[in-house]
């Protein structure tokens, strides 16, 4: 066939798509803006719901995408995407031009920048960290606060940057609830004597084995759940974080001193994705993610013929869903080529 596909983004979706495309005999260029492939999974210690080592998934993806038919270009982001006849011309930030018979957009998501929720003091109060920062602590094997000590009481704030008009994100990021529960359990594994509190608005545990994990957190680990959106955090003279929340189930405001506050950052359209949308004419939806042709049966299809979406560039997804979505994108690419060859 000799067709050449460019996959933009070498995260879970991009690596999966590249690997499957090459298995179908296509030439693939896999572009990654960072210096290594892997995407967000590189920064995560263990994955929900079973707390498996993220390296196992990463190794699978690296094996899958290590194929002579796949050329991985790291440190390369796409500045421009223009149509030329039946193919596309992509220009990278280094000025390189690449021709593609089809394009798979797998630009993924960015984690919500937690400092934008100013009232939580991320980047200001020493012991307010994000879910991603906590993963780094897990990787380092040591959970400590600014004083160098282990935290005794840890608070986890759900919906940071999700379901929140104040930051322009009306949608639910879907993965933060289960991430919170996973991280709460991991904290308890590291620090069995600590107390962990999850502050949530709704527990959205809609995935295979998620609800079971929630139950395990309560039953086995004694994680506490308080229904209320944290209104503000502040810092005491000895570096503790004071949390103000309404315990809505008790119908009273609640105030609590906490040693470490973890913010469950939501998912947003990635910066690279936004840039691509602005220069390529690819449509985005209300939530700034790319807009698919059809919500139910065309979620891989874009408004540009021959350009397909894979993974979280269209909406929050977990790893399982991302991999499935990437495979579906490959199916669409194959069908596109076979229709055009006829």
């Amino acid at each position, binding site marked *: 066939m000799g067709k050449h596909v460019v996959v933009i983004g070498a995260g879970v979706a991009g690596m999966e798509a590249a690997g499957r495309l090459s298995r179908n005999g296509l030439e693939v260029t896999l572009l990654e803006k960072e210096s290594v492939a892997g995407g967000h999974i590189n920064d995560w210690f263990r994955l929900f719901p079973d707390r498996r080592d993220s390296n196992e998934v990463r190794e699978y993806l690296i094996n899958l995408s290590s194929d002579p038919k796949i050329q991985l270009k790291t440190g390369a982001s796409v500045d421009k995407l223009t149509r030329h006849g039946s193919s596309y011309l992509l220009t990278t930030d280094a000025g390189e031009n690449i021709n593609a018979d089809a394009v798979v957009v797998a630009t993924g998501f960015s984690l919500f920048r937690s400092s934008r929720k100013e009232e939580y003091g991320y980047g200001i109060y020493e012991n307010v960290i994000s879910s991603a920062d906590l993963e780094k602590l897990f990787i380092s094997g040591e959970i400590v606060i600014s004083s160098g000590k282990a935290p005794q009481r840890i608070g986890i704030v759900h919906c940071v940057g999700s379901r929140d008009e104040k930051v322009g994100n009306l949608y639910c990021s879907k993965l933060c609830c289960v991430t919170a529960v996973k991280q709460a359990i991991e904290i308890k594994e590291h620090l069995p004597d600590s107390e962990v509190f999850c502050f949530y608005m709704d527990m959205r545990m809609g995935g295979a084995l998620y609800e079971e994990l929630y139950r395990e957190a*309560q*039953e086995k680990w004694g994680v506490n*759940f308080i*229904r209320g959106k944290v209104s503000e955090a502040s810092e005491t003279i000895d570096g503790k974080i004071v949390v103000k929340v309404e*315990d809505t*189930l008790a119908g009273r405001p609640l*105030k609590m001193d906490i040693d470490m506050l973890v913010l469950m950052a939501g998912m947003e359209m990635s910066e690279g994705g936004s840039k691509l949308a602005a220069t390529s004419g690819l449509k985005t939806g209300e939530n700034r993610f790319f807009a698919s042709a059809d919500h139910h049966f065309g979620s891989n299809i874009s408004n540009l013929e021959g350009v397909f979406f894979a993974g979280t560039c269209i909406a929050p997804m977990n790893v399982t869903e991302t991999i499935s979505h990437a495979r579906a994108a490959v199916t669409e690419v194959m069908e596109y080529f076979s229709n055009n060859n006829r």
Partner: protein
Amino acid sequence: MDKFGFTISKGRQINYDQNDRRIYNYIIENEPSFRNCIACGGCSGSCSAGNFTRFSLRELNILINRGENDLPRTNLKKCMLCGKCTLICPRGVNTRNVVFLAKQAFKRFDSYAF
């Protein structure tokens, strides 16, 4: 009061750091399923006592968990131990035993026991 015509109001926030959580701890030690409550309200929705009085096991669970023991202390008496809530609870909390244990705990730790 006389001089100014008012007194300084006291806060009504749940002060988690100062509250007494011995009642809660006693219950979960002896009935670990108490931890599994997700505050769905199934118990209070079906409660025979709650039909006629201001009794809610859901509320009671939350308050005891937070160490806000005043309302549970008096309200517990309203439970008739019919056990309907135990049938309904989707998380398998042994609600009947929770009520028993709560009463025991109040007797044990509380100077104002019933």
